[in-house]
């Protein structure tokens, strides 16, 4: 196949598909309406996992799910129209810290877990619940 024909076909095809997905609601941004909503999203993916608690970040774009029986933590983020879910390891939470008296920020460390995403919480109980899962103390 001639390269030019191939290139035109590919560009046209990509444009057509992406436009169709966009105009049929594929880019519609979503937010978690509540911790319960975030829990429902998590459990639609992880039916077999028992959850201890769910913490909704300010703005409803993210949530942290504390898994029961020391099962770790899951990060839920709304990326556009769909939820992203990632099970976090201790390393991911290495940069967690308090920046003010009221708010905690968690920065997953490897740059791939929704790179640069800051999770802001006004609920300080999240700190005590994630502390056992990470090596570092929240002294800073």
């Amino acid at each position, binding site marked *: *196949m001639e390269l030019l024909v191939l290139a035109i076909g590919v560009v046209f095809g*990509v444009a057509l598909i992406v436009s169709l997905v966009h105009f049929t609601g594929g880019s519609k941004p979503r937010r978690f309406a509540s911790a319960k909503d975030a829990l429902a999203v998590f459990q639609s993916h992880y039916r077999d996992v028992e959850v201890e608690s769910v913490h909704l970040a300010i703005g409803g774009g993210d949530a942290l799910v504390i898994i029961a029986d020391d099962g770790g933590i899951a990060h839920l983020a709304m990326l556009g129209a769909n939820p992203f879910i990632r099970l976090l390891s201790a390393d991911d939470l290495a940069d967690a810290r308090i920046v003010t008296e009221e708010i905690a920020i968690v920065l997953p460390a490897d740059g791939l877990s929704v790179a640069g*995403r800051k999770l802001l919480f006004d609920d300080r109980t999240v700190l005590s619940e994630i502390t056992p899962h990470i090596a570092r103390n929240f002294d800073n």
Partner: protein
Amino acid sequence: MNLDQLVPNYPDVTQIAIPFFVLAIVVEIFLLRRLRKEQLAGFETRDTLTSLMMGVGNVVAGLLFGFIAFGVLMWAWQFRVYDFGFSWWAILLCFVVDDLRYYWYHRIAHRSRWVWAEHINHHSSQHYNLSTALRQSWTGTFTGMFILRIPLVLVGFHPVLIAFVGGLNLIYQFWIHTEAIGKMWRPFELIFNTPSHHRVHHATNPRYLDSNYAGTLIIWDRMFGSFVEERDEDMPRYGLVKNIGTFNPVKVAFHEWWAMFADAARPGLTLRQRFGYLFMPPGWSHDGSREDTARIKADYVRRHPDQAGMPGLPKEVKE
């Protein structure tokens, strides 16, 4: 007599299939919108664009680096013990043998981090639709796995024929990347790879990890013990055990290569441990601090003892 008279000028079937791919995705978008099932992952704009860009990058990588594998295979052709030619039965036989080759390539791709580093991008979407099929590798040539085709050349299949049937195999695998088709006619499901079987392959549920490696024929998984049936009560969740939160195609293509070499270059490791990070299964670590597939499955059985011994899960786990 020139080369064209000896070797058929087979078309590049994957490039010819591009209009069909586009049309099929358009149909699937409308079909899923009509189904409107909440539990289906459906389409998301940036995810779809990333998948398509990975497909475009794969075509470009093929144009740039395809000559390396083809050159090696053409070099090996002089050592063939037989010449099957290009008859219809030779094409059919080559397709089946190459499908077996694909099964082992794919199994190695999931069981050795060196090859997983290039294959991981195909599994990096949390969606499962026809665009996911096009989320292909840019770096396949550099794993050297094309050497698995050398035995086919040595027994007498021409490299052009092998490339042709390989293209047909990839086209077959396109349509099975969909949630729009449920389970199919039982005899078909017994022999061929289907959307149901391949959903299992893309799933991260513990029981489904490292299963259903087939390209076209699912018989290889049934023969080699890696087959797991899709279960209604355990709907597949797609993506990676540790999902990546990026739509950047360059990051998708290279993140695991970067992570792998970073692990292998860590200070204080023995040479054996460095090689372990390059070639052992994904999730392997020198100090056992990470979870590989075996541990994920064992943990699942520990939490769900009633599931022990079910397909895809170990019979017993050590405490």
